């Protein structure tokens, strides 16, 4: 599974209130949430971001609330993947559950510069920096998680499992 685009770079501890402020949690429509994604920190983000773009950040990305609206807003905005030094656990889980891949790769975060174009090969756990001609490697997802992401998230994945077990 290949994905990629331009990078949007942020710092440490990007919290879920920054990704999508609570005042917008009166809907879970991804396009509506996307319009306000990152608004309090970077008001121009929603205008600049394009389908396939990659978000790059420091430590503890997604800390704070359990609102799944946060990864939904990023996905709705067109972000195809987030690369960070580390992730907060609820956010990490939520992102994978909706089929938005998260890659932990401190080396990539340290090397990637504003304006770079990135391509990610999820199956191999490799990040290509097209602008700098560099390659960064990370631990590839286990097969079940690749399937879960390819299926579009936990719900389609679970539905298939339930059907297998004859519950539905």
């Amino acid at each position, binding site marked *: 599974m290949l994905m990629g685009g331009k990078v949007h770079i942020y710092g440490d501890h990007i919290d879920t209130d920054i990704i999508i402020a609570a005042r917008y949690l009166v809907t879970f429509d991804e396009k509506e949430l996307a319009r306000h994604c990152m608004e309090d920190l970077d008001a121009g983000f929603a205008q600049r971001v394009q389908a396939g773009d990659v978000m790059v950040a420091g430590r503890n990305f997604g800390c704070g609330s359990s609102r799944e609206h946060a990864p939904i807003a990023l996905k709705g905005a067109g972000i195809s993947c987030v690369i960070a030094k580390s992730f907060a656990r609820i956010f990490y889980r939520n992102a994978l559950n909706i089929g938005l891949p998260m890659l932990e790769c401190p080396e990539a975060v340290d090397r990637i510069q504003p304006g770079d174009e990135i391509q990610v090969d999820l199956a191999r756990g490799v990040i290509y920096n097209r602008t700098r001609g560099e390659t960064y490697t990370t631990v590839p997802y286990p097969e079940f998680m690749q399937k879960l992401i390819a299926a579009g998230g936990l719900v389609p994945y679970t*539905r298939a499992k339930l059907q297998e077990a004859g*519950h539905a």
Partner: protein
Amino acid sequence: MGLTMTQKILALHAPGQDVQAGSLVECRIDLALANDITAPLAIQEFGKLGVEHVFDRTKIALVPDHFTPNKDIASAQQAKTVREFAQKEGIQWYFEVGRMGIEHALLPEAGLVKPGDLIIGADSHTCTYGALGAFSTGVGSTDMGCAMATGSVWLRVPEAIRFVLTGKPGPYVSGKDVILHIIGMIGVDGARYTSMEFTGDGLQYLSMADRFTMANMAVEGGAKNGIFPVDDAAQAYAKEHAGDIGTILEPDADAVYRETIEIDLSQVPLTVAYPHLPENAHSIQEAMAEDIAIDQVVVGSCTNGRIEDLRVAASILRGRKVHPRVRMIVIPATQKIYKQAMQEGLTEVFIDAGAVFSTPTCGPCLGGYMGVLAAGERCVATTNRNFLGRMGHKDSQVYLAGPAVAAASAVAGRIASPQSILQEV
């Protein structure tokens, strides 16, 4: 290799599975919780799974508390979605406005949490129930939707950090000061993915209210859960509220901890966390030296809206007035606490002091309503997060503190210690 308290609870709910740290286990759940923001999405995802009904209508709690009583039309629609689902599925623990409370104060009070239980909730502060020796953790709406269908959840078994608490806290130093102090030490990702296990002789000085506050904010250190031993105080609470002391589990003597951190409670100062992260902990002396003028004070939330918190705030406000430049908003966390505050005369103290006294809601904590901040405004709040824009405008500021400092600051019009206010008489 010995097991921690969290591993023991996970093992109880995942028979025959390996519960060493790092293992993935599929656990049976005792309760799954969602609120008016997270439930609508969970209900939609549940609907996609193709099951006829929820796995057990007695093991799901739905609490409309964030934007209720409905703040606008969109939030009314969300609350309606939750209400109709609860009716259709016959959800036993749906709490309507007028009978509800802030979820993490409400569920223990309503007796839905017992020692040894495994609880997930589509709200990050679900970790609160660790105060009762339960394993509880926050998840998202999709996990909640799947759990409503299957009655189970997959979890990665966390490593643990042991916090050994010794000594007796000083005057007015509460669980809030202790947890802000700890987060100040370890940082907002210091306990990322781990279980914070609290132990030590100092526990005898921490009330159940203090422990709920501390477990509640484990997530602000990045933890998966925070957990306390089931001592006499916890057993008495469980007996009073749940009528049952549940399953009491203790860590093995040779349990493995990633780290052990000792905290002498007598050395923990009254603590204030500056904007925009809970790790920005400062002592009240440092804060007072900076002479930080404020516009608003909020006492309430799942962190500090319990009767003990209101009693402390009222003891400082009694016979005093909220500073002319300050709005003070006091929000009891549940209807029961609201009524108790009235019966104890606390409501009168707050109203006489010039404070607002409101029906239970999460409202201001997350900048929803009932106390949203304008640009440039500063608030002292007993809530749990002071992120950029958390309570309103991106150029507003939130200082986190316990109820004593919050009440004293309301009187002083600037961040102040209770001692500085009480001396002024």
